[in-house]
């Protein structure tokens, strides 16, 4: 991948600037709302937000809802990924199949699934299932298209060499195609994790009685900006945590590549 640049970046310095940026943003926000430049009814206030978050954590209220959202996200994410990889392999293998389904795939992918959420709730109820389906519909296409592309980008020489060296179709998948496509699949996983959470939250937002989407939607209906923003912060933290985990996993599977930045 990318080689390290000519100039060595100093991480300590970068970290310093990042923290400074965050702190000054929060300070500006706090000051602006305290001195009445902006009404805190609309934008809340950092200290109030922090208090709200602490209250949620202390009472355990947030964990119940976060757990519901995470369950939907993870189940949908795993199923969507599995389905995407499987169908990607199937289509990359059978050219005819790929040609037949190509317009359908493109059309389905172009469809804004978020708008379909009310229909999913109508079909699959207010509970877990409708959200999982929503997540799958978002994750599947991202993973499918990357797997498909990844498999078509496999080095032809490697495939030919494996054929000459006596690889069976199973060997080919296990030792050539899958490792080669994994780079693409992992890149897509990190994109689709964000989508997965969006899917679950939007599903909850439109119809549910628990989960982070429900918390946010409830706060919104009460014109409670603090509740909405605090909910978003919790979601942000969740996405970052998942992304870090996936990054670790990616590094674990790309041990054979030169170190990247």
């Amino acid at each position, binding site marked *: 991948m990318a080689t390290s640049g000519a100039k060595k970046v100093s991480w300590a310095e970068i970290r310093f600037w990042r923290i400074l940026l965050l702190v000054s943003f929060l300070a500006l926000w706090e000051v602006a709302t305290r001195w009445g430049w902006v009404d805190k009814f609309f934008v809340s206030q950092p200290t109030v937000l922090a208090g709200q978050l602490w209250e949620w954590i202390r009472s355990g209220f947030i964990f119940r809802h976060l757990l519901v959202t995470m369950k939907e996200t993870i189940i949908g994410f795993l199923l969507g990924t599995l389905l995407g990889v499987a169908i990607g392999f199937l289509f990359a293998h059978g050219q005819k199949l790929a040609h037949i389904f190509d317009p359908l795939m493109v059309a389905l992918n172009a469809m804004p699934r978020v708008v379909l959420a009310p229909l999913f709730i109508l079909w699959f109820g207010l509970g877990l299932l409708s959200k999982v389906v929503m997540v799958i519909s978002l994750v599947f296409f991202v993973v499918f298209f990357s797997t498909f592309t990844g498999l078509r980008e496999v080095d032809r020489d490697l495939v*030919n*060499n494996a054929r000459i*060296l*006596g690889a069976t179709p199973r060997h080919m998948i296990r030792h050539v195609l899958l490792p080669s496509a994994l780079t693409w699949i992992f890149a897509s996983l990190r994109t689709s994790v964000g989508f997965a959470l969006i899917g679950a939250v939007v599903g909850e937002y439109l119809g549910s009685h628990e989960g982070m989407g429900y918390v946010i939607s409830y706060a919104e209906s009460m014109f409670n900006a603090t509740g909405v923003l605090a909910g978003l912060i919790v979601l942000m933290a969740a996405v970052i945590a998942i992304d870090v985990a996936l990054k670790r996993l990616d590094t674990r599977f790309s041990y054979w590549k030169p170190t990247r930045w």
Partner: protein
Amino acid sequence: MSGHGRTGSIVLERVTQQFPVPREDREFTAVQDVSVDVSGGEFVSIVGPSGCGKSTLLSLIAGLVPVTSGRIAIDGEAVAGVNPRLGFVFQRDAIFPWKTVAQNVGLPLLFRGVDAGAARPRVAEWIARIGLTGFEQYHPYQLSGGMRKRVALAMTMVCEPEIVLMDEPFGALDVQTRNLMENDLLEIWAQRRRTVLFVTHDLEEAIALSDRIVVMTASPGRVKAVYPIDLPRPRSVTEIRFHPDFGRLYETIWKDLKDEVRVGYERSQKGLMG
């Protein structure tokens, strides 16, 4: 040259290969009416200007691509699909970047169902042969170009193919590494006496290595001439160049090759401009 006594003979009879040109309603003729006989254990090089279909010939013999017309037979048997008795060394090193040196060299044995216990000594032997003992657990990105090429060579040789097809295998290496690899190849060849069909655009390399040289014309590739190389063996590629006959052979063959190279070059220029 009809010494078909040992196994590993290759016969090409009036082989023609055409590919459809994408988005145009015509066929591109890569090679035309090529007839070549290679006896078992012989080292034959194919030289010709770039784009003359040398590599296409190897893909056809390996069974990677079905032949358009004509006949290709290995030990009298027509080629139909990939043949496990063949080895192929690619121009770019087609080794698996996600596997270690040891795993790469052992992969063909794994593919062929050799159990791990029996495979281990054979893998160790070949890693030692290519001088990479101690590098077993390295991944390809940690190796130099020459080392990667050695891994590719060991990977091909570990299953003891009767015929080895080599497609400009050393083209990307620097001259010193290249000469070392060529000597290694000659040594391996002298010990095992497999048939080698070696494609190159480097005439010096071809003379230094081969028993015979097939000169091909610019596209569409036809056989222009075949030259026996009667230099003494065993050879060292670095020293054989000083043999009195080397210059004479070079001059004779180059006279044939030169026109084709010019035609090939002019065509590629025209292709670039139009």
